[in-house]
């Protein structure tokens, strides 16, 4: 598992940790039932404050990616396919939005963009 933190990113550090753990969970690199490092250990390893890792874990718990057992620590939840799909969909939307913004910047029309998308989609098949 890798967690790389950027201090110059606009994203909060806890969000960066959240996103990267989420990615590891969605890609099955972290498997269901696997235990996560303690918040204090992770804070030490990443050289960030405890409150930062605490918040990242709380968010992961809220969104159902992990669960915690008092005195034992945090573990990766069983991922239901619906949730995985939804998370991926959100990722796709974000990437498409970036592509749309970039297109608008240089004046590419919707039709042209659709054409491009169609070509690339078919090439991958």
């Amino acid at each position, binding site marked *: 598992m890798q967690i790389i933190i950027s201090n110059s990113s606009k994203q*909060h550090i806890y969000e960066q940790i959240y996103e990267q753990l989420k990615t590891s969970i969605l890609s099955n690199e972290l498997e269901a039932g696997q235990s996560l490092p303690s918040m204090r250990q992770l804070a030490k390893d990443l*050289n*960030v*404050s*405890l409150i930062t890792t605490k918040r990242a874990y709380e968010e992961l718990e809220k969104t159902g990616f992990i669960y915690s057992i008092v005195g034992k620590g945090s573990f990766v939840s069983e991922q239901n396919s619906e949730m995985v799909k939804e998370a991926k969909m959100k990722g796709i939307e974000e990437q498409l939005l970036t592509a749309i913004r970039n297109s608008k910047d240089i004046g590419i029309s919707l039709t042209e963009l659709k054409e491009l998308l169609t070509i690339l989609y078919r090439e991958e098949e």
Partner: protein
Amino acid sequence: MENIIELKNVHKSFKGFDIKNFSIAVKKGFVTGFIGGNGVGKSTTIKMIMNLLQPDSGTVSVFGLNYKEHEKEIKQRIGFVYDENILYDHLSLNQMKDIVKHAYENWDDHLFNHYVELFDLPLKKKIKTFSKGMMMKASLTMALSHHAELIIMDEPTSGLDPIFRRELLEILHQLMQDGDKTIFFSTHITTDLDMIADYITFIHNGEHIFTKDLIEIEEEYAIVKGGLELLDREIEQEFLAVRKSNYGFEALTANKGRAEEVFGDMVIMEKPTLEDIMYYTKKGAEQHV
């Protein structure tokens, strides 16, 4: 959440300087950084927490106990690192240890030796031959060798090189692995805090400005930069302070969401450093007088 240190409505007057109606609560199991400029009351506050000074009015409690009845018990559970050298110059670290250990019921020679080894400290050399960094390590060793639950440090990183400051932060991280420990330290080197502090307590001119966690600060505060034509009297009131030049303005807001609504894409918004917050708060206090 349990509070380890509590100051309630503390007043302390000196010639030309007051600590005014000062209340703070330091949470157990976390690191609190205590920031403020020079001469704004940081050391005085710490001295009151250590009972080296007594407030004129208000109460100080540590571990939920007051100093009047429980001074000995409280002191046993605190490890204190001063900004000045309090070790005896003419003694060696070994001799110093023999004096200090008798003051503490929970003194642990193993732990002492562990830190001496970790910090690579000479046991037999006279302390007066120590460099500033070694002196700091020696003070830290003394403070950490009796299983203190609360570590209080007054400017532990001032005058130390960046490498040693990093090492110190690692040691503090290591200490915090045990969830029962609490660290409270004053500093004006705010970059140290990003890596370790959970809560920031900010003091200015003897007054408590805020205690917030690091994430709250990021969510509430922002540096706003833009052209002068965006400013008018009313808008300037929204900021804690504004710095103007011929080329534009830079300002600190404590209400990031509102600034986003007002200015949208017309300005650049950046994450403020703690230094920015200190600078603009001081400037704001002067401007609004």
